[in-house]
């Protein structure tokens, strides 16, 4: 049966309500506090490191995000690790939480379609994430200006903004994943555990698993050096299934203008190349665009999964 009208009627009001709920929730505050403290710690350590070691750099500002000082990892790797946690915290009980609180039928009693509920929940979560990330980004830039005593250049800002957008898509992937789990499982605890195990696998264990998988899929023939390359390619392709790896490559490419490729480089490709010369911002974005596109597409696929699953559910229980 076809119904008339836009399926998105009421999305805005649901999204805003959802965002407002998140903003005041203790869960969000706790996770955001964790992210904020680690981020400030990483950037503060990076500033100390930059002050003592770097003499002159055309892209000094971007080093704030990439320089690490033991035992703290760099800002960008902290973000790659902790932001999924924030997204999962926002999304893991988005749908099944409504069921368990028995509020879903009340929402759907309003003159809106079911589509609007899921879209609204996703967009509301994304909105909160965007606000959090922009705040975090501005805070880091402010810290950098304060402690380094120099303003970021135009290229610094452009790269930083693209990095911010890529970070939003990365957290969007995890939000959509958490949303999908919350529609697939009935219990919020189950969906939270499922989302957290995916997070642990992809952020920690995936890098250990891929070499094993690659050696099984394309074994090395010691008499054919090309098989070594083939195995490397297989390993890289497998690793890129993980959004965390894609995000890590994106961060490296965007925040280090001298990096020219994310794949293997042969000596013949380096002949005549001016090593260390920075790439134009557009070129870096072009190189890393497949990774960003992968993140966007992953986010959309995850959301579609959640959407299809939610639309087919019985909601009147």
């Amino acid at each position, binding site marked *: 049966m076809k119904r008339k009208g836009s399926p998105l009627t009421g999305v805005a009001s649901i999204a805003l309500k959802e965002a407002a709920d998140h903003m005041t929730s203790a869960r969000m505050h706790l996770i955001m506090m964790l992210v904020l403290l680690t981020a400030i710690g990483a950037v503060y350590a990076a500033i100390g490191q930059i002050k003592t070691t770097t003499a002159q750099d055309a892209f000094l500002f971007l080093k704030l995000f990439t320089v690490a000082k033991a035992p703290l990892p760099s800002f960008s790797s902290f973000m790659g690790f902790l932001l999924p946690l924030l997204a999962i915290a926002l999304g893991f009980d988005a749908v099944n939480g409504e069921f368990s609180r028995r509020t879903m039928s009340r929402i759907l009693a309003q003159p809106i379609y079911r589509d609007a509920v899921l879209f609204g929940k996703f967009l509301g979560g994304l909105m909160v994430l965007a606000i959090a990330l922009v705040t975090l980004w501005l805070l880091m830039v402010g810290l950098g200006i304060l402690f380094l005593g120099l303003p970021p250049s135009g290229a610094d800002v452009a790269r930083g903004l693209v990095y911010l957008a890529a970070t939003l898509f990365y957290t969007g992937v995890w939000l959509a994943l958490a949303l999908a789990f919350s529609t697939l499982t009935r219990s919020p605890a189950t969906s939270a555990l499922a989302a957290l195990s995916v997070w642990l696998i992809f952020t920690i264990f995936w890098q250990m698993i891929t070499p094993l998988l690659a050696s099984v899929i394309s074994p090395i023939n010691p008499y054919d050096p090309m098989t070594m390359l083939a195995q490397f390619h297989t390993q890289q392709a497998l690793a890129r299934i993980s959004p965390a790896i894609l995000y890590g490559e994106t961060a490296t490419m965007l925040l280090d203008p001298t990096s020219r490729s994310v794949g293997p480089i*042969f000596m*013949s490709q380096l002949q005549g190349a001016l090593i260390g010369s920075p790439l134009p911002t557009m*070129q870096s974005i072009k*190189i890393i665009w497949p990774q960003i596109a992968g993140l966007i597409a992953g986010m*959309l696929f995850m959301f579609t999964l959640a959407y299809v699953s939610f*639309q087919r559910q019985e909601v009147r229980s």
Partner: protein
Amino acid sequence: MKSLAKSASFALLGAAMAMTPLLSSNAMAEAFTQPANGPAIHGFWLTADHPDVAVSAGKKVSIPLSLLNALDNPVRTKLAVKGLPEGWTYSIKAGGTDVTSAMPLPNEIDNLTLKVDPANDAEKKTYKFEVDAIANGDQFKLPLSVAIADIPLGDTTLVPELPALHGTVNTSFQYKMKLTNGSNHDTLFNLSADAPAGFMATFKKGYGNEEITGIPVKAGATESVTMTIKLNHDVAEGDYPIEVAAVAGPDDPAAKAKVSLKVSGSPKLLLSGPNDRLSGQATAGSETTFPFVLVNNGTAAANKVTLSATSPSGWKVSFDPKELAKLDEGKTQNVNVKIEPSSKAIAGDYMVHIRAKADGVSKEVDYRVTVETSTMWGIIGVGIIAIAVIVLLGAIFRYGRR
């Protein structure tokens, strides 16, 4: 004995004849080292190569003396000068030491120098005096004369070996010259060249390395001097005279020489990239054309101009036109440089060396090519996102509005 004295141009001491019987020893004389076909010398001799000398006023006189002992025993000889005018002084030197006697060994020649310092106010005339030698109780006399006179100086000359040279502005012109000191005393000559602006002259002694501004030349001697002239690159074509001078003091002789230098034009190539930039962008695996400009801003036509390039491996660089038979001076030629980076080139900057070569000149420029990432992956990325959106829209279409 007389014939010997004549053939050797020796001023023979009058008493030498008388001495011969006294110290006669013909047998011993045969042992004396002598020219193979000359007559034998016997006895004991005091001689002067040039007994009558002329000198200009105020100059000292050096007269070389020889004591020749052709006897079989050393002869102690007491030497003194008699008959010098009032105010004149003399000294006899043997290798720098003042001596008053000499004792040549048998079959030896003792070389001495008689230095006479005439009085400052000596009149211009001939003064006679004699050297007294007392050997074995016999006395010899060697009459000498010094004439104070106005002696015309010899010519001091500066003679270039090759006075006219030809070359281009890049040539270093070398003039070898002989500088002869015609005066009777050692002189330090200052060397200078009067050349037009844009010419730089340096001097060297002979084939030496040191640049000099002056050169000492002994009286009557000749030294070789090399003058090198380098030109500024903007010197126009033409003939240029250069005057070289070797000057000592205000009263001393000076020598001048005129050399000429013919400069012919030379081509000079200049290669500049599009809009005078030496960097450009190209995409990996596809050809990009860069309009270069080749200029000959030299002073002659450049012949057989060829263009070539050194590029990273796997790159293709071609030129249109690749060769020019001739590029006249002041003329400009547009050259399209087509650069195709290797399809495996990674994004970023690469150096390509582009070279224009003509007869005798070449010009190389380093062109910085920024390889851009192929947009293929960008399109594929957009496609993947589009597929994801289509799937989402399809899901909305299929399951939407419940």
